[in-house]
């Protein structure tokens, strides 16, 4: 654990992690016929929240309406259970490696406040984009690529292409 002196976080070899992630995707398709996801659970949360606070508004909106069902809560979906699992799994891994603590992680060159503002902006954009593209890096790009979906490849290229193109403008936050 010598590396701990320089860099507090010692992580798995990326090829090992990637291999296991690939196995999980194969297993998921083999069992359920579908891929993984992450933003789906957040969409269900928003639909549930709006439906609870303003039920008539939710029913009059063409987008919310598609996810609202008289008999069942929009939270009772596969992706919500999977997202709960992600939280548990990450908590286990973080716990086993002593990485659990309340903190704001940011480059020493910027303030916590700046980090939080950019995190919020990034979240809003990602949430919006993931709805337009019908999935995020997990649901559209990763699970799409596993079955060679054309849309999955396009979304993956668009995400990473734009991120590289705009990285220059955000460099102060990271390097």
């Amino acid at each position, binding site marked *: 654990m010598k590396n701990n002196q320089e860099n507090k976080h010692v992580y798995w070899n990326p090829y090992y992690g990637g291999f296991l992630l690939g196995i*999980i995707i194969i297993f998921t398709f083999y069992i359920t016929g579908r891929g993984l996801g992450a933003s789906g659970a957040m969409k269900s949360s928003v639909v549930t929240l709006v439906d609870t606070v303003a039920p008539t508004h939710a029913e009059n909106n063409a987008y919310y309406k598609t996810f609202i069902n008289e008999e069942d809560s929009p939270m009772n979906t596969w992706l919500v259970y999977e997202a709960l699992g992600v939280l548990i799994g990450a908590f286990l891994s973080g716990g086993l490696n002593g990485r659990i603590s309340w903190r704001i992680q940011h*480059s020493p060159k910027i303030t916590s406040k700046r980090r939080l503002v950019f995190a919020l902006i*990034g979240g809003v954009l990602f949430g919006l984009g993931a709805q337009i*593209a019908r999935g995020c890096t997990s649901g559209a790009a990763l699970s799409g690529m*596993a079955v060679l979906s054309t849309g999955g490849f396009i979304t993956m290229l668009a995400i990473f292409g734009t991120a590289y193109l705009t990285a220059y403008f955000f460099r102060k936050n990271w390097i």
Partner: protein
Amino acid sequence: MGPLIPNHLIPLEWNNIIAIIIGIAFGFVLEASGFSSSRKLAGVFYGYDFAVLKVFFTAAVVSVIGIYYMDYLGYLDITQLYVHPTYLWAAIIGGAIMGVGFVAGGFCPGTSLCAVAIGKLDAWIYVFGILIGIFIFSELYNFIEPLFNGDFLGNITLIDTFNWNPYWFIFIFSIIAIIAFAVADFVQKKVKKVFY
């Protein structure tokens, strides 16, 4: 023959339990690979840490080889799998917006959940932002709908689009991955180290 649940080889009641188990494995692997750290994730865009490229590309190659191999051996019927649909401009514009969000926030939704689980407050704010983003999309749905539902090309794969042989494509795709890994290591050596 798989997929097991759609073919009723596993009762539907197990679906949500399996979802939690798969989620736990997914979250564990992401966190253990360092994806709960926005500074590690952002490294891929500045060349100081290529973990995202390596994990993501390895996972894509392993999964596509595994799925096609299981289909070849007759354990899995690939035609029954859900193929992410292609809405051309929605995929491009949605992806482009996500790309900016990725560099600005340093997470994607799955990785932000991992960071939320280990107490990163920036990830809590990021997830809050995602909820706002989804809310904005839903409220502006009538305005965005033509883009969202336009240019629908079907649930197509690259094999349908370009009429390629899947096995040759997967072989070339794997070679591209290996070249990308070599280039990444080369670039990382040239770039100034960042500790986080």
